[in-house]
C-alpha cells in the first residue's frame, strides 16, 4: 500500500486515489494536423521506465484534484509530489523523449 501525500489533503492511503498514468502528455495543439502515426503515439504510446517515472494521481475519494508524483517503479519510493510542471526535468522526463514527445 502506497502512502501518497495529496498536496491539498495530506498523506492518505493509496486506496483513496485513482491512478492516471504518465504525466506531462499534453493534448495535441492541432489534432486535425496529426498523421496516423502521431495519433497512435498520442493515444497508445506512453513511457514505461524501470526507475523514476512522472505520473498523475487523482485524490478521487477526497478533494478529487489531480497532481503529479515522481515515483521509482522498481522500489515504489515516492521521489517528488508536485502540481503543474515537473520540478526538475532530470527526474520528470524519465522515458525516451526522442520519439513522440509532444511537450
Amino acid at each position: 500500500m502506497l502512502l501518497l501525500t495529496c498536496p491539498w489533503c495530506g498523506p492518505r492511503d493509496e486506496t483513496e486515489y485513482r491512478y492516471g498514468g504518465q504525466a506531462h502528455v499534453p493534448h495535441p495543439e492541432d489534432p486535425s494536423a496529426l498523421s496516423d502515426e502521431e495519433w497512435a503515439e498520442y493515444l497508445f504510446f506512453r513511457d514505461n521506465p524501470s526507475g523514476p517515472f512522472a505520473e498523475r494521481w487523482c485524490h478521487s475519494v477526497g478533494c478529487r484534484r489531480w497532481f503529479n508524483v515522481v515515483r521509482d517503479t522498481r522500489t515504489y519510493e515516492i521521489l517528488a509530489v508536485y502540481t503543474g510542471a515537473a520540478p526538475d526535468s532530470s527526474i520528470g522526463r524519465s522515458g525516451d523523449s526522442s520519439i513522440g514527445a509532444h511537450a
Partner: protein
Amino acid sequence: MADLPPAHPTWLWGNPDPRPSYDAVVVGGGGHGLATAYYLARNHGLTNVAVLEKGWLAGGNMARNTTIIRSNYLWDASAAIYEFALRLWEQLPEELDYDFLFSQRGVLNLAHTPQDVREATRRVNANQLNGIDAQWLDPDEAAKVCPILNVSPHVRYPVLGATFQPRAGIAKHDHVAWAFARALDAMGVHLIQNCEVTGFVKDGDRVVGVETTRGRIGAGVVGLVAAGHSSVLARMAGFRLPIQSHPLQALASELYEPVHPTVVMSNHVHVYVSQAHKGELVMGAGVDAYNGYGQRGAFHIIEHQMAAALELFPIFGRAHLLRTWAGIVDVSPDASPIIGPTPVRNLYVNCGWGTGGFKATPSAGWVMAHTMATGEPHELNRPFGLERFITGALVDEHGAAAVAH
C-alpha cells in the same frame, strides 16, 4: 542429527558458456522464450540458437502465473491463436515425453449481471462458430460442475449463469518450462542463465547482436520475449512499445483435500480460483493500478480478491493464506499481444500478453519462431502486429476475453 540430503537428480539441461554468435538469439528464458526456441528447432531446423535469461530459467511470470489454460476468447483472431495453443497443449506432454500434469478440468466464467449474461452468451456463440467447445450453463448446471460454488440468489452478486469450456484446465507451469528446457538441451540449443542483455549491436538499421553481462553475442535474428521488461529492452534498441508494466498478484492457500474440481473465473466480483494438484487453492485477480517493476503489490488487492472468493466459495472461510506474490505483466492498450517485426530489422518482439500469457505459451512460441525464421508473420499473428495501433485495427479483448483486465 540431520540425515544427509538426497543426491541431486540428474540435471535436465546444461549450463553452457555463450558462443560468440548464434543464428538466432531469444531474449528471455520464460515459457514463451523456451517455446520460441523449441519451435525454431522443431519447425525450422534452427539449433544454433541461444536463449538468454537474466536470472534463472522460468523464474519470472512462468513461475508466478495461476496456470489457467483456456481458449474461449471473443474475437476471431484471439480465438484462433488461443485455440491453436490449446491443441498444442493437448499433444505436448507426449511430444516432449514429460507429464506436466495438464489437467483438462474445464473453466467456468461466471455471469453476475444482465450485461454479463449478454456478454457471455454472445461469447459462447462466437466460440462455437470458431469451433471452440463453449457452453452456456444456468446456475444449477454450473453448481453441478462445481458443487462448492455458491449459487444462492441471496448474495450481493448472485450467479446468473456461466460459460463452460470443458477442454480448458491447468498445468504445472514449472514442469512445462522444464519439459521445454530438456528438449532444447537435447537438440543442442544453448540455455544461458544469469545473462542480462544490456544493449543491442546494430549495423545501420539492422540488429546483428546483443551486449550482455556475459559479453557480446552475435545474432542473425533476435527475438525479444521479455514480458514485463519488454519496454526496457525496446528502449535500449531504440523504439517504443505501447505497453505499460504492472504488478499482477496471485496467492496460494495451505494444502487442502480436493474440494474444487474445475477452474472458476468471475469478472464481476473479480477473482479466479483453481486447486492445484498438490492441494493449494490458487487465486488471482486484477493488476495493481500503477506501473511497477517491483514484483510485489499492495495487500488491499489481495483483501479484495479474498472477499470475492469468499462470496463465491463460503467453504473457503476457514482456509489459511500461505503466500502471495506478484509478477510484472505487460499490458497493451487492447489487451491483446504484440507479435511481429519491430522498427529494427531482424529484431522481433513477442509481448503484450498482459495478465494471460501462460495459456498461449505453445502458440506464441510457434508463431514467434515462424516470424523470426521467415521474417514474415505467421497467419495467426498477422493481426497482432505493432502496426495495428496506427491502422486502428485493434483486437479489443478488454472486457471481451472472459476476464476483466
